[in-house]
């Protein structure tokens, strides 16, 4: 496992080893760092959409839905405190880690993180 800390004002996308994660700010409050890979066919979830009526992230490829409660329960272990995000990622201890800022289409309301 690997622990990463970053400023969510600067970054909202993390690649640790072979796995990518994107940061989402949920309408009900709080943030989740979710794997950018749909459980169905591996599509990039950050390019999905937000169904405000259902309160769910929708995969861009086959419309697989991830309700808010699932995102909260299945996201990477995350702590937000003092304006910083710290997350524990399932990667080798010396895996390369890269941070980026991307346009997260799935962001509810189009808000930034």
């Amino acid at each position, binding site marked *: *496992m*690997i*622990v990463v800390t970053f400023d969510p004002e600067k970054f909202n996308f993390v690649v640790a080893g072979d796995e990518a994660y994107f940061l989402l700010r949920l309408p009900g*409050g*709080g*943030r*989740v*760092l979710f794997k950018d890979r749909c459980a169905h066919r591996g599509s990039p979830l950050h390019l999905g959409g937000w169904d405000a009526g259902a309160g769910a992230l929708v995969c861009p490829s086959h419309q697989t839905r991830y309700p808010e409660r699932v995102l*909260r*329960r*299945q*996201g*990477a*272990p*995350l*702590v*937000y*405190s*003092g304006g910083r995000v*710290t*997350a*524990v990622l399932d990667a080798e201890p010396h895996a390369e880690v890269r941070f980026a800022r991307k346009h997260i289409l799935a962001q509810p309301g189009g808000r930034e993180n």
Partner: protein
Amino acid sequence: MKEFLPTSSAAGLAPEPPAAVADVTEPGPPLAPEDIRRYVRLYAANPLFGYLKEWVIADNPYRRPVDQETVTRHDFGRPLKREEALGASALAAQRMLFNVYETDLVFLPEKDFAAKRGDFDSFYSNENKLLGELIRPALETHLFGFLEDEIEVSGKWSGAAVKSYLQSIVESHERTELASLQLVLSSPDPERAAAALMIQVAGDFLTESSSSARNLLGKFGPVQSELFKIAIDDYGHGVHQAKHSTLFEKTMTTCGLLADAHAYWHFYLTGSLALNNYYHYVCRDHSKFFRALGAVAVGESLFAHTCRKVSEMLRAVFGDKVDTYYFDEHYHIDAHHGRMAVENVVAPAVARYGDSVIPEIVRGMEELQLITTLADEDFMAQVAWAGGLKKHRDEAAQLFGGGLGEEAEATKTAGVAHEGDAVITRVCDTDLLCRVESGALDVVAGHGQSLQLNEGEGLHIPRRRLHGLSSASPRCLYHTYELKDGKA
């Protein structure tokens, strides 16, 4: 599966629960704001918490001034924001909450109990405890409610993730030299600054483990016994000379300080009180048991490095005369306690009670670190101010020399102090400029840290800096002005 079923006849006789009984299964409404205000004022009006003439309260653990004047000016019925957590309302509320929590602990003076019997009776009276219990939830929300907004914990946690997370916190901490200690070493008067640090931690160390010991009783399996092992070490295995608080008493006395509980009550900073109260807050309310486990685990894990650095600092400042055994012992034993707290308490608790308790454990780790950061910020700002009082007097002279603006003049307030008046320390939410018009005034910034202002002299007192005023002449007239953004 064996089920408990009532017999048909008993079931037939069982009455329907009355509506009133059904109603009380829902939590009642919180106290109305006017009730909070009334009870808080009543609580603070206890003579035990009133003003005293002494800056140092020797051997009377029941006398704990709150500052009733500040209490009457603030609303304790709303949560403070993080940026208000070291303000005037916070200091008064932290003092009261500390008193509420500590009525659960036993305090006895070293000498002359008969003369203090009345104070003992009053401190532990039902009236004091009942009023304390009435205001406690409001004070807790007022002081710690902001933690809910400041900290988020989400995601799918596992025992391994918690361990990795805590390890990263410890590694990060052990890479630091601890800024507060560096500040002590570089201050103009390191002995006073180091003594000020010992005063800040004395509120906890002289009653060591009293707050976390709240989680020792009950019945909760092997985790309970593991927590007990940590407490047994802290209590010196029942040998008084080995009890950690006894070791700390020696540190205090060899730093030239009294080792009486709360002798330096006036000088506890808001952040230091917050840290003490936080442990009580999560350990007293057993619905926060898992949060308390996280706080204790991170506290024990970080304490070893902190103690090594404090011991080095004390020896650098005081030389051979200081007894650092308290910190040396912790450097050794807390390396074990950190491991024990993680491997024998947190990990088995997760294994036994499930991953769903982890977010609470992690929250406790984070909350304690945030409160510790606040306490460090408070201490460092106080040391910087108290170590430069003459500089702040010169700043004030410049400000007065340039003429105060209309805005500052409009806030002008007169104060009169007499020799022998009761004293109190407080903080203000705005920067203050104080000027002596006649007589002389001592501005006290800490134990043994004061500056006498003579007629015509002034001092800049930054917002949230703990200070007290006492007349250094039979009568002293002074004026205070509020400064917007520290400017006149």
